[in-house]
């Protein structure tokens, strides 16, 4: 039996695993203490719970618990890492290298850095969504203090070559920060094997609660420091003040523990479903896969259906299936996804894209239904698309003088 609506937008957020919720509940009521209260059992209990969660989180990414700074989420982690390094290492340099398909939390933070007198290089990705390593190395200068490249992209699911990136960084004595929101808990991420110095990630993308995340900050080889961006009681080794979100952190820890135990099996199952969805949808005439075929997350696919508009397409099934589109018909700018445009896609293909994000609770039945619905809606909308008619008549659409609004 299919229950509606079907959720295929796991890159936006994930539901809490019921096991995570169960772990959290006592920390709202009976065990409500402040982890910073050192003088009574309520505080001790909260601190113990936080310490345990810190171990669970650290274990998932191969880190030491002392290297985990709890935050409110990855946007805060991105800000703390980039601004914190920029301020802490000001005497060494002011140059940061990032790329043009980063999340806005990284791109806008870099814009902020530029206003503060920093210099930022935005590497262009290749048409498969990956950066060119030679270009990265060529961009490094004596003043470069940080390379900030995302582990995996949120729209197209491509996975960057982190090991190679960090090897280049190490050679030049530059720190590596990665926004790993989409990767942690989905694919094996190990800060030591991957050579990462700072890494932001968040609980709600891995079946944990919203409003809690972590910044990994390396303590050895090299010992990395960031300037705090929130002043106060000096929590989290002085790097992030603010009373700890104990229930959230407990849930985050549990979510990490589940990923440690189940990731391998889960990935195998989900990637099989993703492959089925992708293969079947690419059988639709004039449909195109966005992003690299091989170097990508196991649960994501992003496909453009030429000659139909993404939002119009979603409307055909969005009462029953939740996905997202790179089209921006509702935004004031009407600009389609900057990520897809960075791959060199024309605006027309960018407007025609859908992103499918599968998850822990996705079933084969749901995927079969989605294949059928999406295919039918594409066909239906093409019947009413003037562009499809032109394509079928062999009219060159570039020969038409479009009235640009």
């Amino acid at each position: 039996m299919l229950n509606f609506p079907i959720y295929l937008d796991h890159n936006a957020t994930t539901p809490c695993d019921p096991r995570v919720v169960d772990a959290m509940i006592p920390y709202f009521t009976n065990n409500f203490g402040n982890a910073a209260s050192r003088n009574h059992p309520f505080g001790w209990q909260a601190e113990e719970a936080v310490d345990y969660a810190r171990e669970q989180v650290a274990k998932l990414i191969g880190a030491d618990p002392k290297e985990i700074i709890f935050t409110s989420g990855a946007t805060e982690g991105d800000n703390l890492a980039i601004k914190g390094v920029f301020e802490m290492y000001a005497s060494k340099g002011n140059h940061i290298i990032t790329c043009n398909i980063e999340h806005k939390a990284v791109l806008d933070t870099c814009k902020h850095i530029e206003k503060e007198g920093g210099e930022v290089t935005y590497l262009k990705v290749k048409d498969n969504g990956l950066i060119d390593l030679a270009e990265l190395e060529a961009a490094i200068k004596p003043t470069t203090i940080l390379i900030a490249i995302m582990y995996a992209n949120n729209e197209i699911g491509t996975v960057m070559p982190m090991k190679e990136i960090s090897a280049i960084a190490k050679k030049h004595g530059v720190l590596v920060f990665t926004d790993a929101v989409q990767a942690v808990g989905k694919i094996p991420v190990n800060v030591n094997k991957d050579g990462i110095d700072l890494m932001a990630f968040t609980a709600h993308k891995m079946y944990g609660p919203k409003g809690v995340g972590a910044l990994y900050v390396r303590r050895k080889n090299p010992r990395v420091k960031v300037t705090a961006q929130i002043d106060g009681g000096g929590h989290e080794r002085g790097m992030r003040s603010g009373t700890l979100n104990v229930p959230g952190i407990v849930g985050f820890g549990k979510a990490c523990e589940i990923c440690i135990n189940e990731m391998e099996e889960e990935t195998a199952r989900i990637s099989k479903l993703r492959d089925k969805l992708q293969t079947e949808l690419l059988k639709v005439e004039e449909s195109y896969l966005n992003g690299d075929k091989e170097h990508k997350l196991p649960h994501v696919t992003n496909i453009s259906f030429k000659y139909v508009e993404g939002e119009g397409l979603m409307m055909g099934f969005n009462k029953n299936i939740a996905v997202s589109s790179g089209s921006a018909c509702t935004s004031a700018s009407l600009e389609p996804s900057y990520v897809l445009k960075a791959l060199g896609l024309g605006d027309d293909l960018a407007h025609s894209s859908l992103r499918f994000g599968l998850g822990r609770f996705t079933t084969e039945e749901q995927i079969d239904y989605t294949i059928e619905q999406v295919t039918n809606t594409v066909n239906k909308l093409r019947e009413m698309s003037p562009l499809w008619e032109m394509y079928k008549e062999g009219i060159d659409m570039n020969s038409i003088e479009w009235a640009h609004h």
Partner: protein
Amino acid sequence: MAYSEKVIDHYQNPKNVGTLDKSKSNVGTGLVGAPECGDVMRLQIEVDNATGLITDAKFKTFGCGSAIASSSLATEWLKGKSVDEAMTIDNMTIVEELNLPPVKIHCSVLAEDAIKAAVNDYRKKNGLPELKFEESVVH
């Protein structure tokens, strides 16, 4: 953002989807928008030259649900109107009828532009001077 029931109805059961023979002198065709902007609308009218009334109207639209609904509604309203009356269809009337939110007003503007372009094409084919319009809302 949730769509209004009327938009959903036009999207699910669009009226007058299709193509008229644009080589005929009594058929006017308006093609507006651009693929890069995410909306292209083609609206056609067929006019009875004896009465000056629009006897048929068809559309094809590449765009979101509101763009499809705006053009579907426009074709319904055009049928039976005289060519001159067609020019009185205002985008805000479409906005009101479909309860379009502010971010979707451009869809109604596009429909109004498509009507004007179709009428002008018809006028041109029949030796009438093209009408000039003020630039409508900039998208």
